[in-house]
């Protein structure tokens, strides 16, 4: 039976994993290559690498770092951040990425999704949607969450899949970093509206939150960052917890 996935996320800036930089020395978080290998060994089902500086500083994702992470893990590897063309993707796949995620560039140029799916297949194309709730309605954000557009999140999810995206990574700006739980309503709405897998992201604080995302939120996978980096939640314990809750996971 197909299992639910637990996905650690490495937010990378200037070659280092940065989540929580404000309150913990960066070296204690570990470098992305070591962390990636550690998570793979601990039973992570996939690894996501986001170059969070890429959009803002108009830089391309650091391809040599992507290659070093890829060399050291034996699980699927998705890379995002600043990707805006077929050529960008070709370079990253050439570095050992298995999938790529696009965000701002696809909002600006939705046709990009069709081009990427045509070239590499839908299974390679993840649409990352950053969402923000304003007056009860969820809108799409771009540029690393700095710009709130007037595009309704659910409409964009449906359109992105129609254009060729094979998976959705939905991150709630309202929840990200709060450790108060995932945005269950929009995650569930997306999962029910499209026929591709949905990854819940933003807000993971407890093991219960993961369980909620995968049941009530109807997500196919749940992503966490700092809870894993700071060992607040260990992946093997999390998966055991989920299994005891009756959620199918790979142990």
């Amino acid at each position, binding site marked *: 039976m197909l*299992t639910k996935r637990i996905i650690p996320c490495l937010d990378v800036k200037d070659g280092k994993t940065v989540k929580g930089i404000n309150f913990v020395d960066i070296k204690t978080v570990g470098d992305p290559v070591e962390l990636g290998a550690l998570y793979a060994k601990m039973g992570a*089902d996939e690894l996501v690498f986001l170059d969070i500086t890429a959009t803002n500083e108009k830089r391309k994702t650091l391809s040599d770092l992507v290659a070093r992470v890829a060399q050291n893990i*034996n699980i*699927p590897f998705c890379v995002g951040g600043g990707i805006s063309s077929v050529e960008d993707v070709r370079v990253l796949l050439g570095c*050992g990425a298995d999938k790529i995620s696009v965000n701002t560039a696809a909002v600006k140029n939705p046709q990009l999704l069709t081009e990427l799916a045509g070239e*590499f*297949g839908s299974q390679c194309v993840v649409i990352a949607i950053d969402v923000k709730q304003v007056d009860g309605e969820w809108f799409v954000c771009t540029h690393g969450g700095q710009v709130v557009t007037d595009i309704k999140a659910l409409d964009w999810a449906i359109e992105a899949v129609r254009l060729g995206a094979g998976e959705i990574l939905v991150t709630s700006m309202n929840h990200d970093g709060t450790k108060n739980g995932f945005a269950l309503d929009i995650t569930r709405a997306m999962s029910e509206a499209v026929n591709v897998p949905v990854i819940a992201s933003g807000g993971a604080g407890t093991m219960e939150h993961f369980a909620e995302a995968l049941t009530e939120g109807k997500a196919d996978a749940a992503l966490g960052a700092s809870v894993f980096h700071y060992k607040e939640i260990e992946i093997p314990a999390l998966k055991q917890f989920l299994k005891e809750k009756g959620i199918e996971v*790979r142990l």
Partner: protein
Amino acid sequence: MNIVIIKYNAGNVQSVYYALERLGYTATVSDEPAVIRSADYVIFPGVGEAASAMKYLQEKGLDSVIRSLTQPVLGICLGLQLMCSHSEEGNVDCLGIFPQRVKRFPNTEKVPQIGWNDIFELHNPVFKGIKEHSYVYFVHGYYAELGENTIATTYYTQNYSAALCKENFYAMQFHPEKSGDIGEQILRNFLELKN
């Protein structure tokens, strides 16, 4: 040991290359018929769309090269589908090494299937040491039906072929190069098959 990974327009070639590197092997990546024919083991990976991949193989003359190989050949994911007789994806005739037809999953579940699923009814030396119902990683929207060449089964909307074997030709719908320790063991087993 001379391992050649076939390079074509639908590869996650680098992922496979790194996986072999972790096992201690340096593979050659090539689309040259002579290089491919000279290999001890050939790996035919693939992530992409069936019709355009077949067209590319035909243009390069790689379709007849692959069919004529006599050493162990391992097709992965799209590689498996292209080794079957026909694919619904782009409605294209494929290499015909296996008689199976490749069909799209019905929309009763999410398509593509992405994630870890279990394999069972394992009966081939390539699964030596692999327990029934081990988890491996799948990413695909099309599947090969069960048949006499099926050497591993899995379930998504129905039972279908997780792996196929006929003579020197092996094929896996899942990605051993991305399936953790289990996948590494399967790759090791393949590279220990008698040439």
